[in-house]
């Protein structure tokens, strides 16, 4: 399998630390963005992303190239974020707080949009909220495939499910998103249908 990132990891395993720095440089933004879509706040996401790279650093003694390197690192990231989320939910439940009543983990932390905000801004806000309401595994599956561009096979490996289970998670996630975003979707659909009719 020709995978330059896996080659870099193997170089790092042979003791060349520069190779690790290069991997960090290549994956930093993607892992931060991935973590942000799964865990609570910007700060928590950055902390989680750093944890992922520290885990990658520690993995050098036991690394063997079984799949693409991107699948390997997203597997570390997905496991880490899902564990963090499970811990948060466990604490919230243990303290007698309704899990569904806590602030949406991925909801924007910014102040409400100003009056002059564009419709697209509102849509983004709504999208962020809709993503946050998805169960963790559905959100992780959707993010891996839709935003991180992993194939079904790679995403299934990253979250340790079969390919058909992954498709089912994405199917349910997309159904829920469709329901949440219906008002915006209809507008969008109308516009696209209008555009098709005009052609």
């Amino acid at each position, binding site marked *: 399998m020709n995978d330059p990132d896996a080659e870099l990891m193997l170089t790092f395993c042979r003791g060349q630390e520069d190779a690790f720095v290069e991997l960090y440089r290549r994956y930093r933004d993607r892992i931060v963005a991935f973590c942000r879509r799964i865990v609570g706040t910007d700060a928590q996401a950055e902390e989680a992303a750093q944890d992922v790279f520290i885990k990658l650093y520690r993995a050098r003694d036991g690394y063997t190239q079984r799949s693409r390197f991107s699948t390997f690192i997203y597997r570390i990231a997905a496991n880490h974020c899902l564990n963090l989320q499970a811990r948060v939910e466990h604490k919230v439940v243990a303290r007698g707080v309704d899990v569904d009543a806590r602030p949406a983990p991925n909801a924007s932390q910014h102040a409400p949009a100003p009056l002059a905000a564009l419709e697209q801004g509102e849509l*983004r806000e709504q999208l962020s909220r809709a993503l946050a309401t998805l169960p963790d595994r559905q959100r992780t599956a959707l993010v891996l495939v839709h935003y991180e561009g992993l194939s079904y096979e790679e995403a299934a490996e990253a979250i340790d499910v079969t390919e058909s289970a992954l498709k089912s998670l994405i199917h349910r996630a*997309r159904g829920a998103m469709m329901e949440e975003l219906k008002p915006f*979707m209809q507008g969008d659909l109308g516009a696209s249908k209008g555009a098709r009719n005009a052609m």
Partner: protein
Amino acid sequence: MRCDDAQSELLAGRAPDTSAALAAHVRECASCQALAGEHSALNAVLALDEPHAPGPGFDTRFFARLDGERSAAKKKRALFSVRMWLWALVPAAAGVALLVSRPGSRGNDAATPPEAAAPAALIEAVAEPEDLALLEDLELIQDLEVVQQLEQLEDLDLLEGIDGAEIERLAAEVTP
């Protein structure tokens, strides 16, 4: 391609243009075409979510953590080699103890009871400067284990999990 297969692919988010068979089916099937339209609209909305970029100071914080990790890894490797050394010494020490405990094996000291000779021989065996350094390392390992246990005591998550009645029972056990 049948409708079931096409719908399964579309519901899982696959765009029709990623597969020739799917694209051909969607062109000819009105219901799958409608479904494909809905899902491409959803894809367009999903594309509006912009990725979060690392904040300022992210790299500085990470490389500081990495430095800590590197020195911890070095310490761990050093401790591991000391432990290996100690394990290698066990059979050697046992062999020495066996040799010196055999009656008559120490010439003029033949009168010395074997049970008294063995500890003396062991002390002699480790009296070399490098062995003393090894003993210091052993003490260091023990110290680190104590520190680790203290850290566990400070782990609030762990303390949260301890039942109050359990604490009272343990206190009663240790109180004379």
